[in-house]
């Protein structure tokens, strides 16, 4: 299991990526991260929801109240055009970082 300290700088990107696929509410985001990483990424909900608040205050995402398929209302988050642009930028940085690490570490990471 990887702790949130190591991957902290990438939580923004993870949330933005999930929201490019569909609008989600807070706990749904947490569940999706757990499922996709097979519980290998241990992010506390306190951190996750606080990052969501930070992204919303930076207008990278926006929120609206919607109905859950079966159940009450939920506060859904939606990525904004600014958020999409920021996401593309971070992906580009990530690719550069990956190329650098691959060039240095070579076969050790295969």
């Amino acid at each position, binding site marked *: 299991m990887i702790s*949130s*300290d190591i991957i*902290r*700088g990438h*939580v923004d990107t993870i949330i933005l990526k999930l929201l490019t696929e569909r609008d989600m*509410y*807070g*706990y749904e985001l*947490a569940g999706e991260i757990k499922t996709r990483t097979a519980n290998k990424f241990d992010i*506390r*909900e*306190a*951190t*996750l*929801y*606080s*990052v*969501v*608040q*930070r992204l*919303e*205050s930076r207008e990278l995402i926006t929120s609206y109240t919607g109905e859950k398929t*079966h*159940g*009450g209302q*939920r*506060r859904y988050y939606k990525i904004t055009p600014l958020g999409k642009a920021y996401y593309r930028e971070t992906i580009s940085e990530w690719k550069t970082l990956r190329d650098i690490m691959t060039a240095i570490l070579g076969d050790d990471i295969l």
Partner: protein
Amino acid sequence: MNRIKKFVSRLLKDYFSEQDKRELIDILTISLQEKIDDLVELGTPVDAAIARSIKEFGSTADVLKAFPDKTSEIRQDLSRRRRSAFLFSVFGYVVIVGLTLFVNLWFKEFFGGFLWFVVIAIAALFWPAAMFYVYRNVKK
């Protein structure tokens, strides 16, 4: 909802400006409540859902991790406020002890020479001592 909001408010008690805190409390409370609703919809009893959500939520330190560029500023601000509280408690202590000393000595004969201000001085020590402990914890 009240229990959740109280829990979240307590977590953020000493951190962030009032407006930031209000927004953060709102979003954290709503998200926690949604988790509780999801768990209840899946058949978990309400009290168990609340207890589990609070237990799994995380701490103040986990909230601060979301603001790496602000963390040191937040800690410095808290440290400053704790230091002021400690200095105030020292000042208050000196005033209380000074006053009791004055009354005790001024009416010495009335009290039969008993220096009771010493008892007050020792008892009141808890105040600066507690403030110092809190301040030291923040510095750590």
